[in-house]
């Protein structure tokens, strides 16, 4: 998983579809942000079907992560700096403005 593989992550859903991942984030995360594929999270370009959602609860991020042979995982990672950066650069869709 590149640098993401080295993070202390929790797998919330294995073999998730992008609609399923987005539904989980919208339903379960306090904040949701919309990005395009290629958006950098933890310095890695996100693979995905647009729009890709990133959820944030406090300092914890929830996001889809795709590997060619293993499909898409919905991961949860705590990182205050990355959560703060996403809040600044990404489009917030929940709560709506």
């Amino acid at each position, binding site marked *: 998983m*590149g640098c993401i593989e080295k993070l202390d992550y929790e797998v919330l859903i294995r073999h998730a579809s992008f609609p399923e991942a987005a539904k989980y984030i919208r339903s379960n995360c306090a904040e949701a942000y919309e990005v395009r594929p290629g958006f950098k999270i933890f310095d890695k370009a996100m693979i995905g079907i647009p729009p890709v959602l990133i959820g944030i609860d406090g300092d914890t991020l929830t996001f889809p992560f795709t590997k*060619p042979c293993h499909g898409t995982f919905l991961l949860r990672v705590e990182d205050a700096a990355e959560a703060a950066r996403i809040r600044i650069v990404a489009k917030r869709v929940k709560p709506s403005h």
Partner: protein
Amino acid sequence: MNEPVPQKPETALILLGCPQVPVQTSIALWLCAALKKQGITCLVGGTPAARSLLEVADPDHHYLTNVGDLDAIIEEIADGKRDVDAVFVLIHNDAGVAYAATMAEISAGTTYALIFGDAAEERAQEIEGLGCRVIAVKGSHNPLPLKRKVQEVLSSWDA
């Protein structure tokens, strides 16, 4: 396809998916050869396993002139450090659809989604509206139907 035929590319990227389905390695090597014949510079990106299947089949790199790591190539394109005129994404699973959608987003080149495998129709539906030119053929072992369809695209560049 009602869209205008893209111009013949000068550079191309073949993006390999999971090598689980036999058609992939065969089509990738054939496509390398076909692009080379047309004078198109071709880069192949894939996981270590997918690359290894190609490199063992073409030990002297007659067709594989430039091979690289899938993640590294995507990072370079996302960072604007590299791009190509045409991207061929080999797809048989839903991860492949996500990779093709990503390439359509980050590359200025034309993205061709080459879909095969038993769920080709389902994958083709998933990729609709994501900015890719779709070439889909059901089947996992016989590369000839997909080869014929891709050849039509390559031939259209010279028309």
